[in-house]
């Protein structure tokens, strides 16, 4: 019997991602859920094969390192998506400032 609780594992990964993404989590939720589910199932599969004796501890460790790195890549993507979103929000605010200043002055200064 596998010792890993898949739903808890996926939920823990999602909670960590939520912290990285902050308020903009809903924008990344679908992607993150799908990706973490895939990784979670792969980890569960590795653990089952190890417990069934079909995979050595040495190989299981390498497999888990591979899944861990894949998870890090997902987290990095979420971090990047967050930065893109923040950048878009700042630029939208700057555009409002620019338009306001130009309108107030009556000519295109900026």
């Amino acid at each position, binding site marked *: 019997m596998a010792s890993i609780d898949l739903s808890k594992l996926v939920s823990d990964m999602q909670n960590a991602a939520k912290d990285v993404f902050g308020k903009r989590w809903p924008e990344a939720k679908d*992607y993150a859920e799908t*990706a973490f589910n*895939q*990784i979670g*199932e*792969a*980890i569960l*599969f*590795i653990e089952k*094969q190890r417990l069934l004796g*079909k*995979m*050595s501890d*040495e*190989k299981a460790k*390498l*497999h888990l*390192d*591979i*899944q861990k*790195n*894949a998870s*890090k*890549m*997902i987290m*990095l*993507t979420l*971090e*990047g*998506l967050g*930065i*893109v979103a*923040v*950048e*878009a929000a*700042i*630029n939208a605010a*700057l*555009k409002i*400032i*620019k338009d*306001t*200043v130009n309108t*107030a*002055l009556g000519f295109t*200064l*900026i």
Partner: protein
Amino acid sequence: MTSQQRRLKGNIIASRIITLILILALTGCASIQLISEYDKEIDITVTAFQKKMTRFLISLERNIGKEKSEYSNNTEFYDEIRVDLSAIKVRAAAIPKNEITIKQINLLIENVSNLERLHKLGITPVDIPPLRTAFNTSCTAILKLELAKKRGKH
């Protein structure tokens, strides 16, 4: 309103406008960039890597137990894929504000090394499904961020 109050109000408005102009000037005239631009080469190379890796894993799976799947007969694949990833790492490093993608490529290179170690230990059918998941998920992660860098531009 006295003339002094009018002058004070005028000064406040003027200072606010100057502040706004300064903010815009300091932030590069009305827009900022926090992360690199989309890079087509990274998109193409990572997509090609995913195809190569998928083809390799399918071939391994089909030939498990045969001489063709043995590590010693596949070293060329590892050499080739390392050269591809090394080239894209150099390119990614030359692009400003691209640290996240560089970290992702480093992790992908690390995973190719882990795969090679697994292969040296001997690949069996149970090894393939998690490997396929990991490499597909990794490539999707890199591509998803790269495409987001287009910022709605086509």
